[in-house]
């Protein structure tokens, strides 16, 4: 059976990627998956060697052929996205890719070629295989690309006989987040003890229960507001989401990032490293990650 832990946060910048990278140093037999395709950062800590690059094709984009166009105005009338300007030129940024103009044009003057909207990569990094992607700037279809990288990560885990996929999720609760958590084993929500951190965590927690996924909480920078951290633990209890760890504010995370390393490479003997190791033991041993009740710590911790 392949387990997949997805690390999310609702609010951006709470430390998802730094933590995921640290966990990957501890987890043996794991496929790493960066599902934040919109602003992927994991590769900066992993220096992956890209083995395979594949284009990600999105839907079609309308393009008016001025040679054929009679400027009758039908396309501008039917387009609900205001994507065709007075000169009968399609604004790619506004085009939704619905193709209604293509079908309604009496002169058949509008083409609809599929567009490349990004790339995805199969790579080798220091701890094993990694699947990641890059969505083109200002592109749509981020949810589709997220589903694609997760599917490839699962294929890879099956091929290699690996039991765990670690997925670094995107911020928010919309399309790419929904795509990154459907069918996962469990979620780890990384939260900061701030009013906005709690607010955003609650929305992700609701999304998790909407999709019936078990969740765990990890409080980052807990010492910036210890009372708020206790409040998060209380809220977690109500939502049946245990707090698996509290990490103090520590600029070593930033320094490790500057060095292009995870915390275990940068400061293997530090208190911070020991704290994260304990958190990982908690996660691996949690009921959420062991629905069958089988616990084999040796096989999952280096």
């Amino acid at each position, binding site marked *: 059976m392949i387990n997949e832990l997805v690390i999310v946060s*609702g*609010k*951006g*910048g*709470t430390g998802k*990627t730094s933590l995921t990278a640290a966990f990957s140093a501890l987890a043996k037999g794991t496929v790493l998956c960066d599902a934040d395709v*919109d*602003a992927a*950062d994991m590769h*900066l800590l992993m220096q992956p060697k890209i083995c395979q690059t594949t284009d990600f094709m999105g*839907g*079609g984009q309308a393009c008016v052929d001025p040679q054929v166009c009679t400027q009758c105005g039908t396309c501008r009338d*039917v387009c*609900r*996205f205001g994507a065709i300007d007075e000169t009968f030129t399609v604004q790619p*940024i*506004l085009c*939704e*890719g*619905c*193709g*209604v103009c293509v*079908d*309604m044009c009496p002169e058949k003057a509008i083409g609809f070629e599929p567009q490349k909207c990004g790339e995805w990569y199969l790579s080798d990094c220091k701890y094993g295989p990694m699947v990641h992607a890059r*969505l083109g*700037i*200002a*592109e*749509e279809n*981020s*949810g589709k690309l997220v589903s694609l990288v997760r599917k490839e990560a699962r294929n890879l885990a099956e091929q290699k006989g690996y039991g765990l996929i670690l997925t670094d999720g*995107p*911020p*928010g*609760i*919309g*399309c*790419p*987040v929904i795509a990154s958590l459907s069918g996962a084993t469990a979620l780890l929500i990384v939260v*900061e*003890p*701030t*009013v*906005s*951190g709690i*607010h*955003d965590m609650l*929305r992700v927690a609701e*999304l998790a229960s*909407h*999709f019936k996924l078990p969740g765990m909480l990890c409080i980052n*920078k807990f010492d*910036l*507001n210890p009372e*708020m951290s206790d409040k998060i633990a209380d809220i977690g209890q109500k939502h049946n989401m245990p707090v698996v760890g509290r990490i103090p*504010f520590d600029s070593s995370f*930033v320094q490790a*990032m*500057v060095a*292009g390393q995870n915390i275990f490479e940068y400061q293997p003997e530090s208190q911070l490293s020991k704290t994260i190791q304990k958190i990982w033991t908690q996660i691996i041993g949690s009921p959420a990650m062991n629905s069958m009740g089988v616990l084999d710590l040796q096989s999952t911790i280096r």
Partner: protein
Amino acid sequence: MIISVASGKGGTGKTTVATNMALAVEHDLTLLDCDVEEPNAHLFLQPAMTEKIQVETPVPHIDMEKCSLCRNCAAICRFSAITVVGKNVLVFPELCHSCGGCTLVCPEDAITEVGRVLGEIESGRRDHIFFSHGRMRIGEAMAPPLIKKVRSMAVSDAPVIIDAPPGTSCPVIAATYGVDFVLLVTEPTPFGLHDLQLAVEAVKLLGIPSGLVINRSDLGTDDVKEYARSEGIPVLMEIPFDRKIAEAYSHGKTMVEELPEWAGKFQNLYTQIERLVQAGGGMQ
């Protein structure tokens, strides 16, 4: 004048900059929180909300009495939101992009459009600020239509500050398209720099002038500044890491209220943007 406060990376301080700048400027303005997935500005601004509206997007409804099972609707739909199975027409509202194509091609006039709830918009005031934000329904995937609706809430002639969502894909474009200035907020870390580069590419694509705020400016390297210089993007403000700022933020307090020395700095930030917009922009 419309200023969009954006960043590639999340958690860099967009909301902090947008709310503090709005509070520091002492004339009428509109603040729109367009991060409809995770709206946070209200937590710091604490406006008195006076209005709430539900936002819907049109999706097809099929009248099976009229339907002749011609499949024209399924053929035009690029999003697989309508299929015909046997003698049934199945509609998947969550896949529908509300393009209206199916209603146009139905020869039997069997398709009407009904509303699907995307979320809600709340509006209110705090002193000189008119505030509006969208909250996307949990489980909803489509943010851009709700973001566009939030932007339409700016009705007066007063300047507008938009708190944009993170990233560089469609929600960000919906929150920055057609604005006069993009204020990018980043941190001077490798992640901050990498995601800033993506955001700058997006801003260039839109052809909007931009400027930069570097948050937690002493936690990292000088690479962000060097990059900004090479791209000709002016650094308009630096906010050093200060435990007092972080703790005030954690309680939902703004810098302008807790650390009054910042009020002038945020006013100055706004004035600099005004000048850049009048002069035709920092970076084009």
